[in-house]
């Protein structure tokens, strides 16, 4: 995301809590505008053809055109107040070309034939200028020509059509439940995203897509004025590739955690979670501090998702492996020689990690990626062994493959598309096994739910994770909540300590709207599915300090 485009929410008067770093971008608009469609498909195709023809005429050997309309709505509340309702729209086109074996890119928000032709020429001029310094000419893997096709997130209820008043009512009723049950503060937000994207390329595809995402999230805080302590608990929701139907609670989509509280799969109960969150935040004020040492960790999917993201998703991005991200996010321990060996043990034999851009309800689910490649599912780690990476059209030849994996993405019409993480998920265990079953044979362990602090080195070896709530396990039983937990491990060691994975009935998604990568930095939305999983003998530190 471009720095100029975003306003930090803290600037809108939010407390300086975990949610303050969430960026808002695009122009402010009237919400009724969300339901207008500025261009029909025929008009989009005419603009695309103008761009592709202008690029070819200027000397491009390949060109693609993206027309994007990005809609966002943010409903921001705290306690009994609406703090802000923000509606934004961002609209424009981006043209990417290859000339003299070099990429060039240019964009404009003036969407007309004349401006588009000029932008195409500019992209070609940039490619030609940079080709003087190019020592590795671009090679594109072949792609099918799909003709005129379309895809839409299979939503039941378009969240942008739901009146703002209904959303406000839901958030405020959750806030009041939290306040009645021991919270001192609650910051509660609902984010909606709709990407309307049209892609066309000189390969002969014209792809119209309508992508929807939703994320309800809160932070509830309890304070003990006597001790001066405060504790926060984040929502156990997940951002999803769904419509407003995610906000309708369903008993069949609730899973009872081994610690007795409810967790959520494809339908979320915001009011219930806010109530439980308040109770848990209050309990944490008097919970004991963890003794540091080795513990068996039982990790709930809404927690494990972030660990998968950092320790599997990022290191297996081929551009990182090759050094393209060396100056920012870093490189990767999962080097090509390890993959080529065919026996690099990423994890224990029960570990199967899959990349999937077709998974229902996930954030990465689209029909085609941002360079016109049909999406698919593939293994990254099979039976514990590293078998593949994430790669796009200009990379797959490096790993001796001739088909892109379909995981190219740009966060806006004015950002250039590049390789981004698909959904990366841990496959459920094959034997019937619930999270409560798993706790039963743990002698000394910790059950962790929800996301917390996270940090990993630039080659993705050493990491440290916190969580939202922690429960100590002793002799097969949950003893009670515990504070100040963080676990430190090394990626390969950690995944090789994976001893048990719950079955598919426990499987659900974690997600993030704000995976960052690239310079200038771009964001991307990605989900990570898993079932509750056990890792034996992980190093846990105590994070309590006195200042």
């Amino acid at each position, binding site marked *: 995301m471009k720095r100029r485009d975003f306003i930090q929410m803290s600037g809108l008067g939010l407390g*300086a809590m975990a949610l303050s770093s969430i960026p808002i971008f695009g122009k402010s608009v009237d919400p009724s505008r969300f339901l207008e469609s500025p261009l029909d498909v025929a008009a989009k195709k005419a603009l695309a053809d103008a761009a592709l023809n202008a690029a070819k005429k200027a000397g491009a050997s390949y060109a693609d055109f993206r027309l994007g309309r990005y809609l966002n709505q943010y409903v921001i509340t705290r306690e009994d*107040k*609406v703090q802000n309702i*923000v509606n934004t729209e961002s609209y424009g086109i981006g043209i990417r070309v290859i000339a003299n074996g070099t*990429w060039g890119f240019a964009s404009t928000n003036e969407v007309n034939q004349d401006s588009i032709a000029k932008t195409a020429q500019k992209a070609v001029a*940039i490619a030609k200028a940079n080709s003087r310094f190019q020592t590795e000419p671009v090679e594109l893997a072949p792609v099918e020509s799909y003709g005129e096709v379309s895809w839409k997130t299979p939503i039941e209820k378009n969240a942008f059509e739901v009146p703002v008043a209904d959303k406000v009512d839901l958030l405020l009723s959750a806030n009041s439940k939290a306040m009645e049950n021991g919270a001192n503060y609650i910051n509660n937000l609902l984010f909606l995203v709709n990407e309307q994207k049209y892609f066309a390329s000189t390969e002969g595809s014209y792809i119209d897509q309508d992508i929807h995402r939703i994320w309800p999230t809160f932070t509830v805080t309890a304070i003990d004025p006597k001790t001066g302590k405060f504790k926060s608990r984040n929502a156990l929701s997940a951002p999803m590739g769904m419509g407003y139907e995610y906000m309708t609670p369903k008993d069949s989509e609730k899973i009872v955690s081994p610690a007795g509280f409810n967790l959520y799969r494809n339908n979320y109960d915001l009011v219930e979670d806010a109530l439980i969150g308040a109770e848990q935040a209050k309990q944490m004020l008097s919970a004991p501090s963890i003794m540091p040492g080795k513990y068996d960790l039982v990790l709930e999917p809404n927690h494990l998702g972030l660990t998968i993201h950092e320790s599997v998703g990022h290191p297996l991005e081929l551009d990182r492996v090759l050094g393209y991200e060396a100056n920012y996010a870093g490189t990767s321990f999962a080097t090509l020689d390890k993959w080529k060996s065919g026996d690099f043990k990423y994890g224990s034999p029960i570990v199967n990690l899959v990349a999937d851009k077709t998974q229902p309800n996930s954030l990465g689910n689209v029909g085609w990626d941002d360079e016109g490649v049909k999406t698919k599912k593939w293994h990254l780690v099979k039976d514990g062994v590293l078998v593949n990476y994430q790669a796009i059209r200009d990379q797959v030849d490096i790993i001796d493959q001739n088909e892109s994996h379909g995981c190219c993405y740009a966060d806006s019409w004015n950002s250039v598309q590049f390789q981004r993480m698909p959904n990366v998920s841990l496959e459920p265990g094959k034997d019937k096994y619930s999270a409560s079953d798993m706790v039963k044979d743990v002698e000394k362990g910790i059950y962790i739910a929800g996301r917390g602090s996270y940090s990993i080195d630039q080659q993705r070896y050493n990491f*440290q994770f916190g969580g939202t709530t922690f429960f100590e396990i002793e002799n097969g039983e949950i003893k009670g909540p515990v504070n100040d937990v963080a676990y430190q491990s090394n990626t390969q060691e950690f995944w090789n300590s994976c001893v048990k994975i719950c079955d598919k009935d426990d499987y659900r998604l974690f997600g993030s709207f704000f995976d960052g990568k690239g310079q200038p930095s771009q964001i991307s939305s990605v989900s990570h599915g898993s079932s509750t999983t056990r890792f034996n003998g992980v190093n846990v530190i105590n994070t309590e300090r006195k*200042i």
Partner: protein
Amino acid sequence: MAILSKEEAKQILEKVISLSKADAIEANLSGNTGGNIRYARNTVSTAGAESNTSLVVQSNFGKKVGTATINEFDEDSLKKVVSRSEELAKLSPENPEFMEPLGPQTYLESKSFYESTENISPEYRAEVAAKSINPAKAKDVTAAGFLQDSAGFSAMMNSKGLFAYNKNSNVDFTVTMRSNDGTGSGWVSRDFNDVDRFDAEEASMVALKKATMSQNPKAIEPGKYTVILEPAAAIGLLQNMIGSMNARSADEGRSFLSKKGGGNKVGEKLFDERVTIYSDPTHELVPSATWNGDGQPLKKTMWVENGVVKNMFYSRYWAQEKGVEPLPGPSNGIMVGGDKSLDELIKSTDKGILVTRLWYIRTVDPQTLLYTGLTRDGTFYIENGEIKYPVKNFRFNESPVIMLNNLEELGKQQRINGNLVPSMKIRDFTFTSLSDAV
């Protein structure tokens, strides 16, 4: 029309204000031009140029507020954006924390714009890349870097008579140099308002030298060590701490500056008495705008003086609630340093670790401002006043509050990310594990 003069900006804004039918209107007009180049694997990967101007209009009827944005400036477009902001305000629920726009203000002068930076060309950017890539190739090292430049203006006006204008320019450069055997890595960061102060060759050589010096690091036990943090290593923790000095969070009982039993810790001594941190938008080396987004003047402000918390930032709403003067957050951070060079700090160290930078810094506990993260791109063991050998990277778990109590010595200041920060020697800095990452 990316960079408008004060008069040009004023003319557009006056027209916008005159179109208002709301109780009050406030408009922010800004524009910039700039570009970037990215390189990796010793070759250019992507480059771009951008230019943008935009107008944000906020209208309010009582405490109902609406905001709309546009990037066209003909009369019809201006009418459209004003009426859209008014329609949105009418549709909005009341915002109980809304504050009326400010009246006329007096602002300090600050020279934060340089034509040299505005005139950066694509050829200049390519030359910068070459100045990293060529010496890297000669030393069996691979360079990956990013240069981004931007020049622009911002202006605001409201129906209460406030007008503010500022021009700003910036160039930001980072390069990572990795030895081709994969065992060494160096990095450097430079940023200036005036590109004439930037020396790409000098900066690239710093990263290159660290790449070769850090090859084949030794593993030493994690634990508590005396560290010398270069300014780029200190800035992350300091910035996080200053960014957390919000009075509202403290008064609400959810900050490291909350007081047991209520209230905040303004006036308390929390750090070593040599710790003094202030902000000053007119400082010659780190100039910035002298007003913030809602038109409040920015002045030299002491945040920590001789170890004592002097001020915290108050939004206009929170200041009104508490009956105090509002105090906007800082636009830069300046920590007072000493006279010693980095070499002199190393010379006066018996045993310690020199840290180039800290990376992936995340909050572990907001109550104590405990952060975790890792060293990166050049970590060295010091013994008897000399760098003995490179060491493997560490994960740290440390609070800047504890760190600034364990201060041994301060070195000279250096500009980093728009701030002025000294190198500093700290005792008992907590490293909790080793990392194999290079």
